[in-house]
Every structure is written in structure tokens, then in C-alpha cells.
């Protein structure tokens, strides 16, 4: 069974994949810096009428919960907000582009959050991507 990206179901499957990832548990163990929001920019032609976010309550190597929200207001409480176009998320989540490289190219925009902390946890970021690769995903485009 595949999960459409983005969707509430994909978000839950991603949470489960993160929690099943021992390498993430190790790399993310020191993370106590609060939830992270991944936001897909609105793109009407893809059926994403407004900015859509997945709020990940990551803490000490585990994802304690997720929330699928529409609109940036829904993720405002996150300590880290990363925004990108759908195509950029697809490239990153398929492992085609390293997340930090995507940031350096401007494909991922760290709209909110402490950049040095994000860089310090680059291995944890990569393990989040590795977790996403375990989720059977149906991309819109």
C-alpha cells in the first residue's frame, strides 16, 4: 500500500518509519530543540491549494507525534520550519538530493530556526530522509 505525499496517512507512516530507524535514534538522541515542520508550498496545479505542513515532534531520537496541517499558521509553534516547493521535497525525500545541499542551493528554505543547530544535526536530517525512503510513497507529480 502506498501513501500519497503529502497526506495525513503519509505523515503517520513517516513517523513510524522514523521510530523504526535505529540510526536516526542514535543520530537524533541529542535533539531537544523542539518540533520541526516540513512545509510544502501551495501549488494549485498539484491539488495543494495552500501551504501544507507536517509537524514532527522529534525529541531525543524519537518522533513522539505528528500533525498534518494546512496553512502556515498551523506550524507557527514549531521551532524549525523548512519550506520548499513540492518538486524539491520529492527530490530530497527520494534521496536524490542531500537535504543540506538542497538548503545550500536554496531549494529548501529554513524559514525559522537556528541554522548552526540544523547543521550540527546533519546526520539526523539524513536519517530522516532514509526513514522517508522506507515509506511507500505515491507522489502527485
Amino acid at each position, binding site marked *: 500500500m502506498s501513501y500519497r505525499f503529502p497526506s495525513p496517512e503519509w505523515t503517520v507512516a513517516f513517523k513510524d518509519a522514523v521510530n523504526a530507524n535505529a540510526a536516526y535514534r542514535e543520530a537524533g538522541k541529542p535533539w531537544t530543540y523542539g518540533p520541526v515542520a516540513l512545509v510544502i508550498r501551495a501549488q494549485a496545479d498539484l491539488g495543494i491549494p495552500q501551504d501544507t505542513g507536517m509537524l514532527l515532534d522529534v525529541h531525543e531520537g524519537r518522533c513522539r507525534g505528528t500533525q498534518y496541517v494546512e496553512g502556515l499558521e498551523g506550524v507557527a509553534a514549531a521551532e524549525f520550519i523548512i519550506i520548499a516547493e513540492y518538486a524539491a521535497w520529492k527530490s530530497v525525500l527520494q534521496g536524490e538530493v542531500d537535504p543540506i545541499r538542497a538548503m*545550500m542551493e536554496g531549494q529548501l528554505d529554513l524559514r525559522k530556526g*537556528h*541554522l*548552526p543547530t540544523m547543521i550540527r544535526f546533519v546526520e539526523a536530517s539524513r536519517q530522516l530522509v532514509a526513514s522517508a525512503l522506507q515509506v511507500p510513497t505515491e507522489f502527485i507529480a
Partner: protein
Amino acid sequence: MSVDKYIELVETERVLPFARLIATLLEQNLSDAPERAQELRRMRGRVCLFADDLHAALTLEFTAGRVRVHSGVFGLPDLTLRASSELLIDLTRLEVASRWALPDPRGPVVRKLARALLRRQLRIHGFVRALPVALRLSRLMSVSSPAA
């Protein structure tokens, strides 16, 4: 031009995201640990960072206690670091032997970069002559927790 007390991202027709990210990194590092401004005050010269996989470069111009971040190559660099974007970011993650604030040779990131140097995946030009600049740069860009 966007101006901070210590950092200036030189706004040209096309500001590279790479340059903007490094400027943000430096700005936040200095905000987290103001004592790093002492390193900045001692720095003179130009450092060029080349990200091969991004086909992009930036130049850090250090003068009078400030750094100007230029998109592209600006002037004649005293020090050039050329590598993939991954390795350039790894330079900010160098483990530091706290006593002398030098890279800790036991650290996995330091060892990774040492291997990259040997394999010429990381190339440094002007390192010997600009060694003080290189060491101060590593301290300025380090994402190690300020308490470390």
C-alpha cells in the same frame, strides 16, 4: 546592502543561496558566542569557498572586524577551499580539541576530512601561508555548541 554589526551580505543582482546560508551561519554563530568577534577582529584577507557540486563559489572578505560575504569570487583569495557542498558543511562540524581550539584528530568528521584531503576531494590552496586565517575561520564557522 544588508548590514549586520559584523556581517554584510553583499547584495548584487544575484545573491547565491549558498552565500546567504553562510552569512546566516556566521551571523548566528557570532550572536551565540560574541567572544568570536575577537577572532573576527584579527582576521584580514579573503577566503573563497568553492562548492563543486553546486557550481558555486562565495568569497568572505575579512577587514576591520567585519566580514563581507560576496556571491562568487571577489578579488584574489588568500585561502581557497574547494570541495563538495557536503564536505564544506563538514568543515563547520569539525570536532575541536578544546585546549587549543584546534581540530581534534580523533573526531570522525576530522578524520573524514583528512581522508578527503588525501583523496583530493577537498583541496585547500594557500593553507600554509594563510594558516592563521584558516584556523580562525574554522572557529568562526564552527557549529559546535558554544559551551564546548
